[in-house]
């Protein structure tokens, strides 16, 4: 399948599509933490780097199969998400954001001095195991499971924590436990995306996972619409394609990028699809039908 794609689709576009897929997995992970459960995390790139490094070290130094390395990377990231989550999720809002930024920085500095991770040079020479079809299938799997979870009562309870924590607790929702669970799931997905990323680029270094990367992921969630799966997917796609399209303006790229973000946030403060519900859309269609019948 991948050979067929390579033959008919331009390598540049294929690359962008793979990156969109990886970013969708990343953003859906953060969406569980920040968009759905409402816990502002600004260190998502830290968890991504744990997955990326773990998977790369395993395939490079230990000859582990890619699937196993990918899974180990995700589990490692999830484990750290869990460990970090327990003490920090008693904090709220800005305080939690500070701690997550701090954590991601610690991870970055750790890899900067980590012998096995190649220190500042990073790791290189990973085989390009990540293929378009693989990313495609994983994205579908992640989306389906996300959707399944969020429409369930468990998912509704996660939204309830975002809406009003005290009331959720009074309804019998174990808010601390669920926040840690959301954090762990989000970190797992970040680790998965990290493993895919390192085996697509073939080269990773600590600076790939800095603070700006975390902000970029947060942007995808906020821009797309907090808590909305299609919204976040769209956000990830737009923010992956946008910098590419802005290559025309060369040096002013970041300026335009910033300006576009500001404009979007003014016109859609809840994100592109943040205040859209399937029910409302159906309702709107239905009323239109009635009108056409009468006229």
């Amino acid at each position, binding site marked *: 399948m991948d050979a067929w794609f390579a033959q008919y689709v331009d390598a540049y576009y294929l690359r962008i599509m793979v990156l969109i897929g990886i970013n969708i997995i990343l953003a859906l992970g953060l969406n569980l933490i920040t968009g759905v459960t409402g816990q502002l995390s600004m260190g998502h790139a830290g968890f991504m780097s744990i997955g990326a490094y773990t998977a790369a070290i395993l395939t490079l130094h230990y000859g582990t199969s890619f699937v196993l390395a990918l899974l180990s990377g995700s589990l490692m990231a999830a484990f750290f998400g869990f460990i970090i989550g327990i003490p920090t999720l008693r904090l709220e809002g800005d305080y939690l954001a500070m701690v997550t930024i701090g954590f991601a920085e610690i991870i970055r500095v750790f890899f900067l001095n980590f012998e096995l991770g190649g220190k500042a040079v990073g790791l290189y020479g990973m085989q390009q195991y990540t293929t378009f079809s693989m990313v495609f299938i994983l994205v579908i799997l992640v989306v389906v*499971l996300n959707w*399944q*979870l969020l429409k*369930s*009562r*468990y*998912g*509704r*309870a996660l*939204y*309830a924590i975002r*809406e*009003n924590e*005290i*009331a*959720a*607790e*009074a*309804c*019998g*929702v*174990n*808010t*601390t436990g669920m926040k840690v*669970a959301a954090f762990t799931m989000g970190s797992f997905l970040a680790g998965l995306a990290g493993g895919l990323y390192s085996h697509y680029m073939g080269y990773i270094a600590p600076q790939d996972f800095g603070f700006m990367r975390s902000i970029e992921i947060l942007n995808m969630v906020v821009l797309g619409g907090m808590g909305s799966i299609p919204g976040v997917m769209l956000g990830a796609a737009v923010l992956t394609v946008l910098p590419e399209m802005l290559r025309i303006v060369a040096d002013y790229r970041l300026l335009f990028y910033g300006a576009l973000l500001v404009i979007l946030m003014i016109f859609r403060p809840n994100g592109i699809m943040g205040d859209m519900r399937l*029910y409302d859309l159906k309702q709107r269609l239905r009323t239109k039908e009635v009108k056409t019948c009468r006229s």
Partner: protein
Amino acid sequence: MPILKLEKITQEFGGLRALDSVDLEVREREIFGVIGPNGAGKTTLFNIITGIYVPTEGDLLFKGKKLNGLPAHKIASLGIARTFQNIRLFGRLSVEDNVKIGSMALMPAGFWSSLLGLPSERKAGRKAEEKSRFLLKMLGLYEKRKEYASSLAYGEQRKLEIARALALEPSLLLLDEPAAGMNPAEKDELMDLIRRIRDDMGITILLVEHDMHLVMNICERIAAFDYGRKIAEGSPDRVKNDERVIMSYLGDLGE
């Protein structure tokens, strides 16, 4: 045996004593009212019973079981539901979902069974849906079940809070100023509803309210608080005529 018993409950915030050695007994299937001026410690009392605060001193017994130090969601799952003085709904969730989440204590949703959509979880979901339909019909909110909770009118939001609390199938229901901001007609309707909840569902009700008309009409027993102390307790008539209560709170009612 009383369903709820407070023994020498004291709550301190720094140097402030919000509740001072309070004893209280609520009997099964009664409507019990708590009154007192602002800052008397009524809401603090509710927050202690529901586990939001851990009392500095004293014991809290529900059906003979000690509640001290239990997290709020555990207390909820034992059968204590509440509404809030300043409405706390899940604003950007549908009316229906608000009520469904109310039954989480009764039927906890497991992570894996939810993620994989196992039959057990689907069944629980259907049950929660049935219950929400029943409660929303009972409170006259069924037509609005798909709307966002935040888009409801004020009185409807108060009703929705009650529906959500009832979804927990509590044996004790705590209502924190349920009539605040309601007009006389709505208050009459509310009184009716509270009586129905007690009579038809057998739920014990503990309520805090400023509206004397409502309290004196539906409560069988009343406790009056002032500055964190219980100053009177008994039937509405007795509390109404208690000198200390009149002094601290009901002074202008006697006019």
